[in-house]
Structure formats: C-alpha cells, structure tokens
C-alpha cells in the first residue's frame, strides 16, 4: 500500500553497497551478463535482466529471483518499453550495466571485407543501444543519486577498444566509441551524482569469445564468474564514493557545462 511505498529506505545493508541495489543488466542470459545477474542476486541486489530470446529470459528469470525483460537494445522501438519495465518492476534504478554486445561479422573479418550492415549492427548494439537506454534511464538514475542511493552506469568495454587487433574492426571501433561516450558522460553527469564506468572484464570463456576465437585455449581464459565479481566490486566502490556526494558539490561541474555550452 501507499503508506509503505518508500523506495529510498528499502533494506540496504551496511556491509555491502550492493545489498538492496536496484540493478539492470542487458544481455543477462549468457556469458558475463548471466554471471553478473547471479552474482548481484547473491549479494542481495534486486535485478532486472534484459535479453532478446523470450525462452532464455523466461528460463533464467524462473531459475533466479531476477525480473526477466524481453527486448533488443539494438532496436529503437524496444528501448522505452525496456526502460518502462526496468523502472516499473524495480520501482526506480540505481545501476545500469550495458553488457549486451555484438561482435559484428562472424567469423571475424578484415575491415575491407566487412559488410556495412555488420558494422551497423555492432554500432547499434554496442554504442547506440547503450546510449539510448542510458538516456531513457538517466532520469531514474539521477533521482536515485538525489535520494543518496548513488547511481552507476557500467559500460562493459574491451581491450579491443584500445588496441587495433586485426579482424576486430567492427567490434573494436564500436567499443572504442562506447568507451569515449562513457568518459564524456562521466564529465557531464558528475554534477548529477551519476557515475559512469567503462571497464574491460578481460578475455573470458564465453559464447561471444568462442564465436570470435573458436580455437582459443579455454583454460587460459578468465571465468565469467570471476570477471562478474570484479565488476560488481568496482560498482560497490563507486557507490561507496558516491555516499560522500552532495548536490552542492556539483556546482563546479555544472558551471563547466554551462561554460562549454554557451
């Protein structure tokens, strides 16, 4: 009932900043995303996962306490229905993890052999989708920051965003753009108390990696569960820093925004 409606005081434990955290993970039924969903739930977070395949979403949601949302971040028409369900089901949002990723052409190709459409798919999933979803949810994240819950956007990056690996053109270019988007948004949104992270989880033993490098020595690859723990620790750390934030401290950043836009 309305009397108990108070999103700001829902059980957050003092020990782990992730306890009670409202977190959404895209690409949450496979690989790193799936590991993030399970690890966040284990640490007491309230989780909404987003993925394209209704059967997989249903299966993962049924096997966990997560809310399952069917949608494709690469499709413009899906973004607001996804954002609506995330904020509706969780009653707001403290953390968004843009994890869903597309390799581009499979098998990997030289840029000269890459179809334009494959590059567009990589950009739609890895850059434009995260931009749209973050923009749609920025109001909810800023509200969370105002209520001193903290607010974090984690964009899953890659060392291919920094290094020019042969054959990784579509993926690497889209991840490089996402990394830079994160950096600029971090500058702009610090005044709102929303923290942007762009982190490389390392080479993991996932379906995506198997598509890219079918003959990789899997024993040399990081387990997605270990990478998920690292990323959640980084989110926890960002939230702990955020606890010291007050709107007033954003005044300098706000002045910077004003100056650069005028």
């Amino acid at each position, binding site marked *: *009932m*309305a*009397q*108990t*409606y*108070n*999103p*700001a005081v829902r059980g957050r434990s003092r020990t782990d900043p992730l306890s009670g955290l409202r977190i959404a993970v895209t690409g949450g039924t496979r690989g790193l995303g799936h590991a993030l969903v399970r690890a966040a739930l284990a640490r007491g977070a309230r989780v909404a996962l987003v993925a394209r395949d209704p059967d997989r979403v249903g299966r993962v949601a049924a096997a966990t306490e997560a*809310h399952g*949302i*069917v949608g494709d971040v690469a499709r413009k*028409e899906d*973004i*607001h*229905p*996804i*954002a*609506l*369900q995330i*904020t*509706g*089901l*969780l*009653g*707001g949002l403290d953390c968004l993890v843009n994890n869903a990723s597309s390799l581009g052409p499979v098998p990997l190709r030289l840029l000269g052999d890459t179809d334009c459409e494959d590059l567009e798919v990589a950009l739609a999933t890895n850059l434009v989708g995260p931009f749209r979803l973050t923009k*749609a949810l*920025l*109001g*909810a994240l*800023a*509200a969370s920051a*105002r*209520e*001193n819950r903290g607010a974090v956007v984690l964009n899953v990056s890659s060392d291919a965003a920094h290094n020019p690996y042969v054959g990784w053109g579509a993926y690497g270019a889209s991840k490089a753009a996402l990394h830079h988007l994160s950096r600029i948004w971090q500058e*702009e949104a610090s*005044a*709102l108390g929303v923290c942007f992270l762009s982190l490389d989880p390392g080479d993991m033993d996932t379906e995506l990696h198997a598509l890219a490098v079918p003959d990789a020595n899997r024993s040399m690859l990081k387990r997605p569960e270990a990478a998920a723990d690292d990323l959640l620790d980084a989110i926890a750390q960002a939230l702990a820093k955020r606890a010291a934030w007050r*709107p007033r401290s*954003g*005044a300098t*950043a*706000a*002045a910077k*925004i*004003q100056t650069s*836009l005028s």
Partner: protein
Amino acid sequence: MIVARPRQRADAKLLVVGADGSLSHATRRELPEFLRRGDLVVANDAATLPASLHGVHGPTCAAIEVRLAGRRTLAATDFTQCTALVFGAGDFHGRTEDRALPPALAAGDRLTLGPLQAKIERVLAHPRLVELRFNASSAEVWAGIARHGRPIQYAHVPEPLALWDVWIPIAATPVAFEPPSAGFALDWRMIAALCERGIGFVTLTHAAGISSTGDSALDARLPFVEPYFIPALTARAIRRTRDRGGRAIAVGTTVVRALEHAAALRGVVCAGASFADQRIGAGTVLNVVDAVLSGTHEPGTSHYELLRAFIDDSSLREAGAALDAHGYRTHEFGDSLLVERGEARGAAANAPLARQREHQSSRTIRSPAPCR
C-alpha cells in the same frame, strides 16, 4: 492559438506573471534569470505510462479503447488494479469530446486488451469510468502494457506519440497517466544552469492523471485522487529553503497539488506517500508554493483554476490576452508560463489551516510518514 509539435523546442517561450501582475516575455531558456539564489525548484519526476490500451469488450465483441486513469498506490508490485476510462470505437484523430461511448459496461465484463485479460470490477457512477482488475501478476501487467500500450494521444497532435515523446528528460518512475508536461521545460542543461546559480533542484513523484475525459460531467470531477511520494531529502530542502527566505518554485500543477496537500496535513511539508485529493482554486490559501511553472491552460480547466490560487483574475485575464497576442503555443507540448504568487495571496503565516480543509473532499486523509 498555435499547437506545438510534440518535441522540445529550443525557441520555446516563457511568459512571467510577476507577483504584482506585471508581464515579462522571455525565452524558456532564460527561466533561471527569473529565479533567485536560494530558491528551490521542485519538479515531478514521474515517467508516463503507455496508458492507452485498445481491445475488445467480451460480452459484445465491440472494439474499445481503455485509458488507465488511476491507481491506489505508486508501488511497482501492485499493478493489478486500476481505474480506467473506456471509449468506444475510434482513435485519437477525433476529439475526445466526440468519441463514441463504449457499449454498456457492467461488473464482471471481461475485456481483452492485447496480451492482457481484465475484468470490470465496478462501474464508477459513470458509463465510461470503471474499476478494472487484470487477470495477471503485476510483472505480467508491466510486460503487457510495455508491449501493447501506447501513450494517451491528443487530437491536436496529428502523428501518433511514442513513449519517448511523452517522457520528460527527468522522467524516473513510470506512474503518470499523462505527462507532467511542465517538466518538458527542464532539460539537463537547464538543471546545470540552476545549480550553477545556487538555485536548488529537487523532485517528488506524483501520478499525474488524465487531463480530459471527453465528458463534461466527468471533467468536472478532475483531477482525480492522485497518489504522490515526497522523498525525505526533498521535504528537508523545502523546509530549509523556507527557513532561509528562499522561494519554492513548483514545476507543474501536480507539484503544487502534492506540496500543498502535504503541508495542509501538518503546516509543513513532510516526507512520505499520500493521496492528493483536494481541489485548488481561487479560494485556496497556498502554504508552501511561491510560484508555479506551467503550460498555458484554458479558463474552466482544473489547471487554470489552480492558477487562480496564485494571482487575481484580472492579472490572469491579461496574461491570457498576452499569450494570444504573442502567439504562444498551447497544450502539453507548448510554451510555458511562470506565475508568482500575488503579494496579497495567503502567505503561510496568515493562513489558518482550517480554511484549507474546506477545499478538500470528505475522503479520509491519510497521513504521510512523520517528519524527521
């Protein structure tokens, strides 16, 4: 008047009606210049639901449109019940006033609304207004309206509106049935500009209801009872602002309604969830809000009535004439009006709370959480 396209315009205009009735024309971008260091801007961060659901009335197989219009709570986990308006066949290109009545509705009628099944629990004293219960869990209702629902449309906007058209930039929790449209004035650059000038910015969440039912008898009952939630930090910021002589600037009529409702309970704004059930009009004494940013509204609407609490009728008439003369854009996506509370209008100090109560319905007032 000119009707606006459904998007933010860089050239949106602002008419400022001063406390002395003076009129100033400006661009909306210049809003911060009419505010003072130490003022506090309070906005409604409700996101808008895709509340229009087309479907079929089971007993007659007639095509209907259901517009969700009210919930008894803001809680995400309780979305199985709704009050709703039911229209007959037709779409938004016709004016709401001209829409056909639905087939005769009765308790127990089944409705199919895309992927959702619902049952009419009660007809609420009007052939269009019902209490619905979805035959689904709250999670299924969220998925169903996300897939099948559309934002409530307006006959004056020719292209169908998508959800991204009706979410204001600060939209957070999806609880509004129509957009809290004054909030279209606030983009992130504007919020940075406020912050830089030492003007505070806080939010509350108010389930803004429908603006028109297409029926004059029902319209006379607007606004319906609307749940709202005031975060503790917002309540504290308002008290601190008032203690220091700053002004509370409400972005939108929903914010006025929520803050004045909360203040009428105890004399100061307390944090918590409650239901705004009062009507605000010329006789209402405002205890908290010093100015309201609003769209332009026509005389006779509940929004216009609310403005009458801020300033005398002759000033409002002059403002209306100026809006017409200078081609201001009206309706949800139009230009803005900033109305300061007239000097003679009840400041909190001389406002006996008993007078406030006269304007509230007999519905039981639920207390918000105690002030901390």
